[in-house]
């Protein structure tokens, strides 16, 4: 079933929509490659039934906004690719709020499926109502796209 990209966030809350934005750009990419190899989903939050979408995937990439401003007020936060380990834990799990690691664990436990999972974290600074990204996040988009394409190239191999 190829690879899966899941953009997480709310496209109507400023920088929180970056996951949707980047996942949405993959339509162009899949025109140039094999569309059946790549599926892009955009979701507001990870829900348990998404575990079924991870089945038989060679790789899964989550893209999410990363609340970086508070942790790094100096503005040095950069987009990052990180592996997502399986994590069958989480307070409050069972509702509509699953962490990527919990979703990976669900796919493993329920469907014996263990795709290589990675997350692309894009620093987010402002979450006002509306689709506009903050200037700080917009400045980081080229780097985020490079990392996305890095994952696309490497996960294909």
């Amino acid at each position, binding site marked *: 079933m190829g690879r899966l990209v899941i953009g997480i966030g709310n496209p109507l809350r400023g920088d929180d929509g970056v996951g949707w934005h980047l996942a949405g750009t993959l339509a162009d990419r899949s025109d140039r490659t094999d569309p059946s190899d790549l599926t892009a989903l955009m979701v507001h*939050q990870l829900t348990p039934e998404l575990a079924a979408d991870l089945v038989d995937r060679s790789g899964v990439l989550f893209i999410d906004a990363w609340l970086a401003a508070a942790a790094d007020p100096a503005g040095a936060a950069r987009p990052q690719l990180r592996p997502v380990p399986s994590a069958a834990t*989480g*307070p*409050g799990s*069972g*509702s*509509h*709020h699953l962490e990527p690691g919990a979703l990976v664990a669900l796919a493993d*436990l*329920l469907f014996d499926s263990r795709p290589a999972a990675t997350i692309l974290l894009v620093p987010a600074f402002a979450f006002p109502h509306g689709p506009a990204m903050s200037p700080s996040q917009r400045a980081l988009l080229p780097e985020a796209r490079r990392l996305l394409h890095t994952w696309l190239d490497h996960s294909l191999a």
Partner: protein
Amino acid sequence: MESRPPAAAAMTRTVVIDPVTRIEGHAKITLHLDAAGHLIDTRFHVVEYRGFEKFCEGRPFTEMAGITARICGICPVSHLLCAAKTGDKLLAVQIPPAADKLRRLLNLAQLTQSHALSFFHLSSPDFLLGWESDPAKRNVFGLMAADPDLARAGIRLRQFGQQILELLGGRKIHSAWAVPGGVRTPLSVEAKDWILDRLPEAKATITLALDLYKTLLDGPLRKEQRVFGDFPSLFMGLVTPDGRWEHIDGMLRFRAPDGTIVADGLSEDDYASFLGEAVEPWSYLKFPYYKPLGYPDGIYRVGPLARLNVCDSIGTPWADRELEELRDRSGRVATSSFAYHHARLVEIVACLEAIEQLVNDPECRNGRVRSRASLNRNEAVGVSEAPRGTLFHHYQVNDDGLLTRVNLIIATGQNNLAMNKTVHQIAREYIPDPVPAGTEIPEAMLNRVEAGIRCFDPCLSCSTHAAGQMPLHLQLLAADGQILAERRR
């Protein structure tokens, strides 16, 4: 009503469960004790506010389907459909027969996926793992460890409903497929084939769940059925003109706990004449009530149990057999709020049977799916049955079609009085009386109080709306607000 301010006492204490977990939204529960440690009052507080009605003003009514669908990522289809229906009335059009059937199909899929989430993911951990089990494991992962087949089947049942939403609307959530005048596209052959291919598995899953649930009802859950919010109240829901189960059209009916039909054939247009909305200073959630009986005596319940209580029958064979069994177990009018769980399963059966009928109906492939007109009215009220109960949209627009007033009456709000009453009954049953000063309230008792709220599967996102984590926060407060004890998880 138990939610009135407690009687003044020199040394009362209050137990607070804040926020309530495994519901959609943010809330807390307070249990008020008097100086002697007796429970004297309970309150289910909704502590979030979003005010959707206000910021819809000034927008074109044609945008309401898209805007209100964004009130909630859990049941956006309900708002989408109700907004589209209200828009139909502003246009003063009759939608094509295909559009009516396709909207029905969408709502049936929505009911299926929402009920599956409630039963398999949110409530089953309580049933299968036990009230005394470790709260850290009393979730979907604990359920997987206890019964992986059930967990897997539940996830795939929800996926079945979600996938139908996507096949019809192009996306699982926030689809703009339903519009004033109809829908955008008919059912494709591919979608029909996919649905029919997955239906047998969905039916097998709900059979498994019903068998399991009935076994539990006969054993470990027998007491919960009796004490989780078993009290007399009215029930309200849509029915067809001949009194059958309805979810998107029809007329409103109120039935009393003794089976009497209190009011029938009510139109949503007249809702203000029979529904009142009270407010309390301690909650953002309104308290709707049946006007002829006043507040709070006009308490009524909506949702799956109410729909099954108000209807005469469902109209499909398997669902009607299950409905009869529910009535055999819980009464012609089931008054226990715990029976909401059983009602959800019966409604899933009804949905699956109706979905099968609709996808095999050639009309759903008819390309004439939208009636077009311009604005012909300045005011309209739409109604539909959301998973959690009856949903009203009331719009007033100017001659340019811009909204000048919006009123949304949400299912969860209509169950507000009943949720308060349910919490009170559970607390009376499980909280020691009196509570000795300085003692902890056992976790299992707190979980039962929370579970009383989960019977209603409340969606506070719709009712008020805010995002947030949902840990458990418990406080024991004196009458003067001093925190006597506190715990979090």
